[in-house]
């Protein structure tokens, strides 16, 4: 996020696109709702009438996967009606001419045809956005989980720069991170192309810096591969040994049949976790780890805030903190790592090596933590990025992008679009929430959420069992007829092994980010003989 959660409740205009905030980020949603109670306008762009849409001044139910067409259409209106922030664009951005040429190919009528909404709605959105400044844009995985996820993100950024909203309080481009420490895992360099603090492995200066800090031999200069490529590698034999730490890939990745084939092809699979999972079934060695409240450490939230996690009890049996386990393996590779606690790892390694975290020390994290960049020990942190339109890398880049349809679209055999996401009462594959007393009572099984109109057409009553089928698999689940879902769409989550949407989802990926298209594939639905 370029901005902070606290700004949500003070915002005057919020554009929420592809975010089911009331379920996936409930506390963030409460601030957005507060803003509407204070008179803010809220535009919710989502194929479903999500919980947040109940608070919206305008809900725009675009078709699944039509985001770029929609945003280009909005920008077309902003430019043709001369509503964009000319001064901001001229002084803070580059690439306007190319963007202009591209969005001119998307007059509202053409966008409307792709998005399935009225052209006048697109005009209305553009005019409303231009009328209130600043406006905040928030998005979640509805934007990123497409084969064009990267371009969806660029499109959101284009819009906010065109409106002159980046670098302002209560403005900005704000992706809400799905998991508690996705931000942190990336910051720490658990990515194939960068060291901690986003320093490129391809940069010889960065390599020599880390080499001397880590006191090791020369570091590899070739960026590694991303997770989907690792799974493919297991299947085609290019990856022999695979180390999975705290992820249940057998349920979270698209096309479970395929993922399990990949996992079972590993010559050697190590799983490090706190519970046996569907993934550990394939392991050759399972290493037991300390869990959340059995660890001292830090998480970094969506607004780049580094905050403390504290220990209240010892891990069960002989299980150990994860960092300890990695250290023991390193020792067997002849490396003598000295840091012997999370605090020491942070204070004497991470903060020394990542310039954006240089000023973060454990002793400074007693209160509300610190938002990076924190370049020095006296720096107060950075709640707002790109302040006043001054981008960290010079001028903000407007990058024109084209709409493409999802990799798999409905046809006669598979006439419905399946889109997936999270529900309020559970988290991911329920490794944790499924074992917290009471949450299964609040939500005990998966359902296929669908429009009552489709239900009626197929003769399906609410609560009846249906079979949902894609080219990759099928599941049997209860139908949940709800007018929150538009006709033609089926919506499911991935919390339950039985009826997990990922038996069906399509392993098609964004070519750059390698994010899977969880949000769109084609399925068929049929009524089952009722018991």
């Amino acid at each position: 996020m370029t901005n902070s959660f606290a700004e949500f409740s003070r915002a005057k205009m919020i554009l929420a696109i592809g975010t089911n905030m009331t379920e996936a980020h409930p506390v963030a949603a409460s601030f957005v709702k507060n803003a509407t109670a204070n008179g803010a306008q809220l535009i919710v762009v989502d194929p479903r009438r999500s919980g947040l849409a109940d608070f919206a001044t305008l809900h725009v139910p675009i078709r699944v996967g039509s985001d770029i067409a929609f945003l280009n259409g909005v920008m077309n209106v902003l430019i043709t009606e001369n509503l964009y922030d000319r001064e901001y664009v001229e002084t803070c951005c580059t690439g306007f001419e190319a963007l202009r040429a591209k969005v001119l190919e998307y007059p509202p009528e053409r966008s409307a045809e792709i998005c399935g909404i009225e052209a006048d709605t697109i005009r209305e959105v553009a005019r409303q956005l231009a009328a209130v400044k600043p406006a905040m844009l928030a998005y979640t995985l509805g934007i990123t989980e497409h084969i064009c996820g990267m371009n969806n993100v660029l499109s959101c950024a284009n819009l906010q720069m065109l409106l002159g909203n980046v670098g302002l309080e209560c403005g900005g481009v704000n992706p809400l991170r799905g998991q508690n420490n996705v931000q942190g895992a990336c910051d720490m360099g658990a990515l194939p192309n960068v060291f901690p603090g986003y320093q490129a492995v391809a940069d010889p200066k960065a390599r020599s810096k880390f080499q001397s800090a880590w006191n090791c031999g020369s570091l590899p200069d070739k960026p590694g591969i991303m997770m989907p490529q690792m799974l493919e590698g297991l299947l085609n034999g290019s990856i022999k040994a695979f180390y999975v730490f705290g992820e249940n890939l057998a349920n979270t990745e698209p096309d479970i049949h395929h993922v399990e084939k990949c996992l079972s092809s590993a010559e050697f699979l190590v799983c490090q976790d706190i519970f046996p999972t569907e993934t550990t079934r394939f392991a050759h060695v399972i290493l037991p780890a300390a869990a959340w409240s059995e660890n001292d450490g830090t998480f970094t939230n969506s607004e780049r805030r580094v905050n403390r996690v504290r220990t209240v009890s010892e891990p069960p049996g002989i299980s150990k903190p994860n960092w300890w386990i990695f250290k023991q393996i390193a020792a067997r590779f002849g490396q003598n790592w000295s840091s012997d606690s999370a605090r020491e790892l942070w204070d004497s390694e991470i903060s020394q090596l990542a310039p954006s975290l240089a000023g973060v020390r454990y002793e400074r994290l007693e209160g509300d933590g610190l938002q990076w960049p924190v370049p020095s020990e006296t720096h107060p942190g950075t709640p707002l990025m790109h302040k006043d339109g001054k981008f960290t890398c010079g001028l903000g880049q407007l990058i024109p992008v084209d709409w493409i349809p999802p990799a798999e679209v409905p046809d006669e055999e598979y006439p419905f679009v399946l889109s997936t996401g999270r529900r309020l009462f559970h988290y991911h594959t329920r490794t944790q929430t499924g074992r917290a007393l009471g949450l299964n009572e609040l939500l005990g099984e998966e359902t296929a959420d669908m429009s009552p109109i489709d239900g009626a057409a197929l003769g399906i009553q609410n609560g009846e069992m249906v079979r949902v089928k894609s080219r990759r698999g099928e599941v049997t689940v209860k139908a949940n007829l709800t007018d929150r879902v538009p006709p033609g769409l089926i919506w499911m989550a991935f919390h339950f092994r039985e009826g997990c949407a990922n038996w069906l989802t399509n392993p098609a990926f964004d070519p750059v980010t390698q994010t899977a298209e969880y949000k769109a594939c084609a399925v068929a639905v049929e009524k089952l003989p009722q018991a």
Partner: protein
Amino acid sequence: MKEETITLTVNGRDVKDRKIVGKKGQTVLEVCRDNGIYIPTLCHHPQMPPYGGCRLCIVQIDNMRGMPPACTTPAVDGMVVNTHTESVVRVRKTVLELLLAYGDHNCLLCDSNGDCELQNLVYEHQIEHIRFKTDFVPKPKDDSSPMIVRDHNKCVLCGRCVRACLNLQMNGAIDIAERGSNAYIATFNNTSLMDSVCVNCGQCVEVCPVGALTEKKAKGLGRAWEMEKVRTTCPYCGVGCQMWLHVKDGRITRISAVEEAQPNEGRLCVKGRFGYDFIYSEERLKTPLIRENGSFREASWDEALDLVAARFKEIIAKHGPDSVAGVSSSRSINEDSYQMQKLFRAGFGTNNIDNCART
């Protein structure tokens, strides 16, 4: 913007010329609290709009009729306020006695014993018996939710839960029904909590000053005064809410939000507040396991780690470092991810390290 200051005289009768300074726009209660002057309250909660319902915060103000509530009365420059005159204290006492009469305030049977604002107020006002006889008829408890128990008989109708649900979480699941001594907190259509639109966020429990709303899972795990509070960060979504773990003998008994902390400003959702006890599941992995003949057997750390190192070495020697790959956890702490990528880069010699950033 420069804040305008105002000066009030508070309890000048006891302390000669006691002048206190506040900010324009504050209530009498806020000015007094900022200056360390105590006024009892019950319905007031700093995170929510003032309500003026309980009348415990009444004060006397020169040139104002009656006894206005400090929590809703704007402070004005030059005001002369008295917080503890004899008549004010007498009215407060009567208010408390009425509350005690209309309800079943048996602290022995209450989970909030020792953590109850009514109990504290009764003690402070030295009330020794319940003076009034009423026609109070007890209502059945609502324990339909797996998380929250509602006991109407302990409710003091302060309305905090209603405001928490409506103004903080904006769910609007509950409201005050009926009037006068028949009033009670109800869901829409008076259903059980489980059948209402309640999302079990527990914000109402967090703000309830008494034992009318309590947490089911915390029952029997310890008394308020036995708890140690440990601050931490929620393990679920990317908001990163700040929370207090209430710990007894190394076990989390319940969780509350850190009031006024960023980013959550005293709020939590159902997962953060109630999703903690997986830690204590019997299914936890407790020892390293090695696959043998199609099943897993327990192993020591040395054996398991030696095996992992040996197999990785062997595979790297035979197929090169890029034949190994790893995925770090986007749920675990930063230091774990740092350590894992270091192992892959410095130990194994590959950049084949990633995390689940994209789901």
